């Protein structure tokens, strides 16, 4: 009888293989989700993003004013932007604000996350507090800071009462401090966002590794450099990219507090796009500015993503 066993097993094996194949076939027939379900979402993506950006890019090369017919003007809008000091200023301020925003928000967010990560008893409460402004309207927050920076506002009152009256100034009305005051508003609101992203990254740092290093007597810097930082790399990628995009798009705080003033010191690309397109109705010129903003965000964000991803692998 023994000699039959392999045959029986082979038969059983082929039968189960056949059953599995039939199951797989049925599964494929039943389980295949039709692409039709994706249609509304895909249509929204195409209509509101790619097609709209395509049309917008076309406007950038016309002199359209939103009403009459338009004609192709080639690079004239872009030449005008390059020749216009206020448009050049807007480009420069956008980069300054976004650069400062990414560096400060991530530095503060990382510091808060490292401080809050372990052992601290009030960490849940503190995390909620630091993250709270992220949920609030940037416009509403801007008004609160508007009073702090106002000539008779909180900052000057505090400076006056500690004997630093010489530093008092109209923070938002002074061309040399206005842009940096706006930066403070942005950093205050979004440091909690970076913190939360770094805290999520820190959760992947295993307690065992960390304690083993403590026992081995590794220095704090060594622990940070060799254990914490590599594990934080994905969080840094997400946080830096997200804050970069927020920084380059900044609009609400400026519209509320300075509207580009004083003397264009806080003019940015998003503000100029709004002003030129929807206030002066220069659709072609506004589209050219918006195209520059789009190119900036896309190139910067994708480059940053690629660089950080590469570093992630190296760490």
């Amino acid at each position: 009888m023994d000699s039959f066993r392999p045959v029986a097993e082979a038969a059983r094996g082929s039968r189960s293989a056949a059953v599995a194949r039939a199951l797989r076939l049925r599964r494929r027939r039943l389980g295949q989700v039709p692409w039709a379900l994706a249609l509304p979402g895909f249509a929204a993506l195409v209509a509101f993003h790619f097609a709209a950006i395509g049309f917008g890019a076309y406007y950038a090369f016309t002199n359209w004013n939103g009403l009459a017919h338009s004609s192709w003007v080639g690079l004239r809008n872009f030449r005008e932007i390059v020749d216009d000091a206020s448009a050049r200023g807007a480009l420069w301020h956008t980069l300054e604000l976004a650069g400062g925003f990414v560096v400060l928000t991530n530095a503060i967010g990382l510091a808060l996350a490292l401080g809050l990560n372990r052992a601290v008893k009030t960490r849940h409460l503190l995390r909620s507090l630091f993250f709270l402004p992220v949920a609030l309207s940037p416009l509403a927050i801007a008004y609160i800071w508007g009073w702090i920076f106002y000539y008779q506002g909180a900052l000057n009152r505090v400076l006056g009462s500690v004997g630093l009256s010489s530093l008092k100034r109209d923070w938002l009305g002074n061309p040399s401090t206005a842009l940096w005051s706006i930066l403070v508003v942005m950093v205050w609101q979004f440091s909690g966002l970076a913190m939360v992203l770094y805290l999520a990254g820190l959760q992947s740092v295993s307690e065992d590794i960390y304690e083993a290093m403590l026992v081995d007597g590794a220095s704090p810097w060594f622990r940070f450099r060799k254990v914490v930082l590599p594990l934080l790399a994905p969080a840094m990628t997400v946080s830096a990219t997200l804050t970069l995009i927020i920084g380059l798009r900044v609009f609400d705080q400026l519209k509320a507090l300075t509207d580009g003033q004083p003397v264009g010191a806080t003019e940015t690309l998003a503000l100029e796009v709004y002003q030129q397109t929807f206030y002066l109705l220069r659709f072609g010129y506004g589209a050219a500015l918006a195209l520059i903003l789009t190119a900036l965000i896309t190139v910067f964000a994708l480059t940053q993503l690629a660089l950080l991803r590469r570093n992630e692998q190296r760490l």
Partner: protein
Amino acid sequence: MGLARYSRATFLRELALILVAAVFCLPLYLLVAIALDTTAQSFKTPLSFPWPPHFGNFAQAWHAGGLGNLGHALESSLIITVSSVACLLVLGSLCAYAVARRQGRLSNVLYVLFVLGIILPFQLAIIPLYVAMRHLGLVGNYAGMILLNVGLLMPLTVFLYTGFIRALPRDYEEAARVDGAGLLRTYARVVFPLLWPITATAAVLVGIIVWNEFFVALIFLAGTRYQTLPVALYNFAGEYVARWNLVFAGVLIAIAPVLAFYLFAQRQLIRGFSGGVKG
């Protein structure tokens, strides 16, 4: 997290953090203190907390500004946010279901396109969209604003759902299909309920973004009776320049719903933002 020792260094660190948090909260203290000031107090003693508090600013802020006032704006914001989020959750999850469950090149390409849609700013897209929607009579009303929110936030919604569905086992839906349930019935009865955690996260994240959105609402709704809270607040603050106690009362009215919401939805919001870290 394991049981880390609570040493002296930890205690000092905790103390330092609490101090930082106290300074960090000063703007919020000022907001409440000044919103409760009389006009005279707001100029003389703005830094001290007014006692007794003066609640009259809220009534005045609530009614100022005619048809586009904060009271009406609260209603508009609610209608626009709830409708936009509902459409996004239904259409976004369906779309993500197909993208996540189909395998192969097309599905990967679509996923990348949706991610690109998140990164691309809407400042350029909004110009032709404004022109097209003006032709279609969709500027200055709810329908247009809701459509716009759904279109602009679709990539983010699909991205959130796709990541979640990819990690979800197929067993339940396959069992339902084998038992003879149709595709849509399977989706509505089996798949969608399983998506509840990400639905909550997406609803909170997208809802907050729509609620606070200012740039697009300013272009499409400013000056109409359908304007949302940020637009109404912008007009209100512009009208009452330097009447800080009134402006701050308006600001508090505008952020109060989110403040209340934050108390129980912050976990979802944090999860929504940090989704990219783990994925």
